[in-house]
C-alpha cells in the first residue's frame, strides 16, 4: 500500500538522501540569486534566510528530539550579546564568534543536564525561565550590557574586505548558515543519531531498553542546536546593529521559531525553513493589518495547527497532494 509498508533498502535510503542533498543545494543556489533579482527587498531576504536557519536549528531539538524549547531566544540573545560585547572590547572577530558559540553550548549543556534527566514538561518549563533570567540580568547589569537602553554594534572591521553592514554580505552569511543548518538536519534525518532521537521522541522507555542513552543523545542534539542558534544570534546582532534585552531575549522570538517549525512540519528537513518563508511572507504581506495583532494571530495559528494539522501544514499539503496524485509505485531502478 503505502511506501512505509515496504522495507526500505539501504541503497534506496542513500539514494533518497543524495536526492535531498541535491535538492537543498539547488534551493540554496536559486536563493543565491535573490540579491540580484530583488535588490530592493534585501531586508526581507536577510530575515528570511536568518529565520529559516534559526527555525531549522530549533527543530533539531524541538522536532527531531521532541523536546519543546520555548526559550531559544536565550541562545540568540546570549550569542548576540557575547559577540557584541567582545567586539566592542576589540577582541578579534573570529575569537568573539567562537566565544559566543562556546557560551551558548555551555549554557545548553548545563540547562540540558538539569532538565533532560527528568520526565515530562520540565524542559519546556525551564526553557522559559532560562531566557527570562538572562533577560533580567541583561536588563539590570547595565555596566556590562548597557541595560534596558540596549547596546550598539557600530564599527565592525570589514570581513575579508567586505563591509559587514552591507545587506548583501549579511544575506550571503545568512545563506551559508542556512546551508549548514539544513545539512545538519539532513545528517540527522539519515544517521544513527537521528534514529536515536526519533526513538526517544516516540518512546523513551523502549529506546532505553534498546541501549540508547537518552540524556547523552538529547544533550548532543541540544548543544548542536544551541551552536547554530548562537551563530544566528551573532548575525542577528550585526543585522540589527543595535538591540536591547527586550528584543533579543523575548518570548515572542522563541515562539516565532517554534511556530515556523510547527507550521512547516516538525521533524522534517526542510519544513521549518518553509515555515519561515510562509510566516515571514504572511507578516510582510499583512504588515498593516498585523501591527500589534501579530502575536494574536500567531496564537490562533498555533491553536488551529495543533488541533487540525498536528504534523504541520507541509504534512497536510503533502497528504492532500498524494491523495490527488497517488505515488506511482516506483521501483528503485525507475528513478
Amino acid at each position, binding site marked *: 500500500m503505502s511506501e512505509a509498508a515496504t522495507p526500505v533498502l539501504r541503497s534506496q535510503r542513500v539514494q533518497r538522501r543524495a536526492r535531498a542533498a541535491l535538492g537543498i543545494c539547488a534551493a540554496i543556489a536559486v536563493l543565491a540569486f535573490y540579491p540580484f533579482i530583488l535588490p530592493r527587498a534585501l531586508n526581507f531576504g536577510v530575515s528570511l534566510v536568518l529565520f529559516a536557519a534559526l527555525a531549522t536549528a530549533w527543530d533539531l531539538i524541538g522536532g527531531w528530539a521532541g523536546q519543546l524549547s520555548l526559550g531559544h531566544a536565550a541562545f540568540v540573545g546570549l550569542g548576540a550579546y557575547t559577540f557584541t560585547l567582545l567586539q566592542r572590547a576589540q577582541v578579534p572577530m573570529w575569537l568573539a564568534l567562537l566565544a559566543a558559540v562556546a557560551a551558548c553550548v555551555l549554557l545548553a549543556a548545563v540547562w540540558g543536564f538539569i532538565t533532560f534527566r*527528568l520526565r515530562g514538561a520540565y524542559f519546556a518549563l*525551564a526553557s522559559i525561565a532560562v531566557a527570562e*533570567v538572562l533577560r*533580567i540580568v541583561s536588563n539590570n547589569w547595565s555596566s556590562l550590557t548597557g541595560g534596558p537602553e540596549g547596546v550598539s554594534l557600530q564599527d565592525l572591521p570589514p570581513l575579508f574586505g567586505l563591509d559587514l553592514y552591507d545587506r548583501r554580505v549579511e544575506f550571503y552569511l545568512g545563506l551559508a548558515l542556512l546551508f549548514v543548518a539544513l545539512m545538519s538536519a539532513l545528517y540527522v534525518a539519515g544517521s544513527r543519531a537521528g534514529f536515536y532521537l526519533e526513538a526517544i521522541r516516540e518512546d523513551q522507555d523502549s529506546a532505553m531498553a534498546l541501549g540508547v542513552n537518552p540524556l547523552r543523545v538529547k544533550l548532543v542534539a541540544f548543544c548542536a542546536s544551541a551552536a547554530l542558534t548562537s551563530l544566528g544570534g551573532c548575525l542577528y546582532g550585526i543585522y540589527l546593529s543595535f538591540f536591547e534585552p527586550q528584543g533579543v531575549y523575548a518570548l515572542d522570538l522563541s*515562539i516565532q521559531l517554534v511556530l515556523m517549525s510547527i507550521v512547516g512540519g516538525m521533524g522534517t528537513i526542510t519544513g521549518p525553513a518553509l515555515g519561515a518563508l510562509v510566516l515571514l511572507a504572511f507578516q510582510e504581506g499583512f504588515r498593516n493589518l498585523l501591527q*500589534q495583532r501579530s502575536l494574536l494571530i*500567531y496564537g490562533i495559528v498555533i491553536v488551529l495547527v*495543533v488541533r487540525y494539522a498536528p504534523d504541520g501544514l507541509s504534512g497536510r499539503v503533502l497528504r492532500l497532494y498524494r491523495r490527488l496524485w497517488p505515488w506511482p509505485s516506483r521501483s528503485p531502478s525507475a528513478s
Partner: protein
Amino acid sequence: MDLIGFVQTVASGVLTGGVYAMVGIGLSLIFGVMRIVNFAHGEFMAVGMYIAFALFRSFHLDPYLSLVVVAPAGFLLGAFVERVLLAPIQNAAEHSLILMTVGVGLILSNSLLLIFGAHPETIYTSYSTRTVAIGPVTLSVPLLVSFALTVIVVAGLFLVLTRTDLGRAIRAAAQNRDAAELQGVDTRFVQTAVFGIGIVLSMAAGVLLLPALYVFPTVGGIFTLKAFVVTVLGGMGSIVGAIWGGLLLGIVESVGAGLGATGYRDAFGLIAFLLVLLVRPQGLFGSSHV
C-alpha cells in the same frame, strides 16, 4: 536590615505568597488530574484582573465584590477551553498539549492588548494605601484582605475535595484515571470541572492582587512563570506543596528585594526553580512522581 525590618519584609512576603499559592494550586490541580501543564495559567489570571478592572471603572464595583462575577466567568471560560480545545487532543503528544496552552495564552494576552491597550492601569480604592500596625510591624490592608480571602478560598477548596462526591471523583481521577473510570467516575466531566476550578483559582488570585499591582496585558506571562516556580518548589501535582511553595516564593522575593536587588526580584524565584530542578526535582515539600 534590622530585625523589625526583616520581620516586616517576611510578613509582606507571606501575604503575597498566599496569593501566589492560590495561583499555584490551580496549576497543580490541573496537572494532577489532567497531566497538562497549563502554559496559559498566568494569562487567565490577567483576564481576571481586567474583568475586575473594567467592572471597577464602569460601575465602581469594589474589586473584592467582583469576585462574585469573576468566579463563575472563570469557570465557564475554563470549561469552554477544556471542552473545545484540550479534550479533542488529550491523547496527543505532550508537546502538542503544551503548544495548545501556549497558543491559548497568546490569544488571551493579545486580546487584552487590543481591548485595553498596552498602557499599565491601576485602580485606586479608599483602602489602597492604608496600612495597619501590629506592634512595630505595618502591613498593607489590601494585601491582608487578599490573604484572608485566599485562606477562605483554599479552605473551601479543601472541603470540596475531601467532603463532596465531586471532590472524591477528582482525587480518584488524579490517582488513577482508568481505575476511577472503572468505578463509574465520569472522568470526562471531572477533567472539565477541574480545568474550570483551576482557572477560577487563577482568575480570583488576579482579582485579589489587583489593588496592589499595576495591570497590563502581558502581566500574565510573569505569573505563569511564578506559578511554575510555586508548583515545582512544592512538587508537581501536590496541592499542599503548592501552598508551601507559594509562601516560600513570596518570602524569597520579598527578602531579596529588601536586600536591595529590586531589579532582580523576578529572577530569584526562577533561579530557585532551576536549583530545585537540579537537586530535588520532586519538589521541596511533595513526593510527586517525576
